[in-house]
């Protein structure tokens, strides 16, 4: 190769081509989105979040939650995310306009958290906790196969009827823990108290999390002597995790922020560009291929 100038121009050109193509142009397309609202200017989604949520997001980033948890729901043709009740529709760029740093994630050693806040609330609304707890704390994989085929075989419809959702929820064991505290004193699934207990002792919860390999975040909690009466925020721990008599475990402010952040994760609001929970655009990988393969 002769001369430095053509080499330099080539190096600069290839770099600029990639920079413009993969960051600048996409930024023009999706880099300045506004929240969506209805005609009256109300029903704004997404909304800017509180200071506690922002601080919680930084704690989430600082402790590397992103290395195991994603926060994105893929469309139904591209994976089982919707079948797993991680969301009712795919995620869209507009869902993240107020997130910084965005924690989309790249690996799922743990479940997706895009709607973790919603899932807690939804459970409480949906299941009025009939039948008592024994039926509701299933052994993993112990559900009848017939019930399992329902979510897998049916194309998940947007805003599925409550009955179907309830059935599906019962079929997949993860969200099926009791909504009301069971005899073991377990808080409702994905409630704030549940998150605190789960962060403090991830393997203490129910049969579903007993095999989890999530690290405990006990350094976000303070073990202190009970002064007078027990704090309302104290964790309901049992077994080996429980503090000695006369002591209690309370969340630090960081833990409260982290849980506030988790509770804020909710993409259930419909978006105009995402058609009814299905993929917005036709994709080469069409839906027939979307059904997960059977083992």
């Amino acid at each position, binding site marked *: 190769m002769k001369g430095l100038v053509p080499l330099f121009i080539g190096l600069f050109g290839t770099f600029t081509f990639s920079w413009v193509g993969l960051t600048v142009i996409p930024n023009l397309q999706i880099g300045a989105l506004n929240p969506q609202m209805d005609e009256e200017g109300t029903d704004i989604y997404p909304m800017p979040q509180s200071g506690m949520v922002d601080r919680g997001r930084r704690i989430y*980033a600082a402790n590397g939650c992103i290395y195991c948890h994603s926060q994105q729901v893929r469309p139904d043709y591209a994976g089982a995310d919707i079948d797993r009740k991680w969301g009712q529709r795919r995620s869209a760029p507009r869902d993240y306009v107020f997130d910084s740093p965005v924690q989309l994630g790249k690996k*799922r050693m743990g479940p997706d958290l895009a709607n973790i806040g919603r899932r807690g609330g939804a459970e409480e609304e949906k299941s009025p906790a009939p039948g008592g707890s024994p039926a509701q704390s299933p052994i993993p994989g112990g559900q009848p196969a017939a019930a399992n085929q329902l979510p897998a075989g049916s194309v998940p419809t947007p805003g599925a009827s409550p009955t179907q959702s309830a059935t599906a929820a019962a079929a997949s064991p993860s969200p099926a823990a009791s909504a009301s505290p069971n005899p073991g004193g377990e808080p409702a699934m994905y409630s704030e108290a549940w998150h605190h207990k789960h962060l403090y002792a991830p393997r203490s919860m129910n049969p579903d999390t007993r095999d989890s390999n999530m690290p405990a975040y006990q350094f976000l909690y303070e073990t202190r002597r009970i002064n007078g009466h027990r704090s309302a925020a104290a964790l309901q721990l049992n077994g080996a995790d429980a503090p000695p008599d006369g002591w209690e475990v309370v969340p630090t402010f960081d833990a409260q922020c982290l849980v506030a952040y988790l509770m804020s994760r909710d993409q259930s609001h419909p978006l105009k560009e995402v058609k009814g929970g299905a993929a917005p655009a036709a994709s080469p990988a069409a839906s027939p291929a979307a059904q997960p393969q059977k083992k």
Partner: protein
Amino acid sequence: MTPAADIPLKQPAVSATASDAEQYERALIDASTRVPVLMFYASAMVWLVIGTLLAGFVSFKLHSPDWLSDVSFLTWGRLRPVHMNIMVYGWASMAGMGTAIWLMARLCRTTLRHPLLLVTGAWFWNIGVAIGITGILMGYSTGYQWLEFPPYAALILSIAYALIISWAVLMFRFRRGEQIYITQWYLLGAFLWFPWLYAAAQVMLFVVPVQGVMQTAVGWWYANNLMFLWLGAIALGTVYYMIPKVIGRPVYSYHLATIGFWTYALFSSWTGMQRLVDGPFPAWMITASIAATILTMIPVATVGLNHHMTMQGYFPVMRYSPTLRFTVFGAMSYTVFSIVGLLISLRSAARYFHFSEATIAYSHLGLYAFFTMIMFGSMYYIVPRLVGREWRYATLIKLHFWASAYGIGLMSLMLMAGGLAQGASQNDPSLPFIESVQSVLPYLRGRTLAALLLTASHFIFAYHFGLMLFGLGRTSTVPTFLNPVEAEGSEAHL
């Protein structure tokens, strides 16, 4: 003159073709690079050992999560980015810069001016990495892949880099000879691309942050290009020097090399977005990257073919030469790395590999099997020329090679197979999610075994390198061969 053509195996002491004047010139150049290059190498070795120990921690904690988990700075989610950043900025970048400096000096045929600049740069770089990892451990990680260092650490790294690159400009100004060799294209590319990349990412993430998901896109664009345009370019440039040099034969085809270089620059810089497949992004971004990934098969084929044709008939030299053995392993791994990258990015396959451990296998294939092995090879070549001693024990080199090769092979297999199992169970909604974790855990235990092998290999190499650094290598006119008895004219024992 192609710089590649003239050196037979037993260079430098017994040279059949190079004249005395050239020998003398080379010795002068090597002497002028001694302090800065050894400084970079020594720092890289320290980071490598620390990073390896952390890798063991991280790997072990993944399947034994309660171990040392109640101390904030030992939590898995902080140790993992520390491990990654140490390997990328501490080990890989410093070893790469050390090799690049030496190669540039040799190829520009000029002694290194102002070595103090480089030494200062290396110090600043070390300080930047140390401050960065301290920041992550204290809980100030930014949360962007490969950019976890807090911005103040990035500032120090930039200052360090400015010092280092100013040297490169000086070097080019004083170069002799008109021809710019292939290796120099890659090195010049790497040295220019890296600051542009780093600056673009820092500005778009921290100075004027882009909105929402664009942050993730910028993050992946950066991480991917750091692998290809910075580390990958240095590694490929090194291969273009080492293979012809060791076997004493010019590169097979300059034309192929030109095609390989420009297609590499053009296509590999457009990959990266396939890591966001089916995410909340316009589909064209992901499709463009998948197309670019397919097109990277062009540089893979041309570069691979070129090296293969150069090596044709000389493969037995790998039995003797440590440099060649590591370098060829790395060059072959470049092909494997690219093909695996292609396989896991096609949409049909991405369904099973996305969000699984397979992406970790891919990173390790690139950073270790490809880049790191080539760096090991170049260090086996360069260090003796800097310290004036030969490597002491052929056995240690062999142990190092086999432990590394089996270690990275086992790790990649474990993570790929585990990733497939994990992805398949994740995609089957009739299985509870925890099943997907359970299905990958045995493979993660296997990966810990691989991490032990790599740890052993790195300790062996660090020990051997330490011997060289303290002048305890062999004083000999013959390089250390791996199988001395078979090597013609070598000593009967080592």
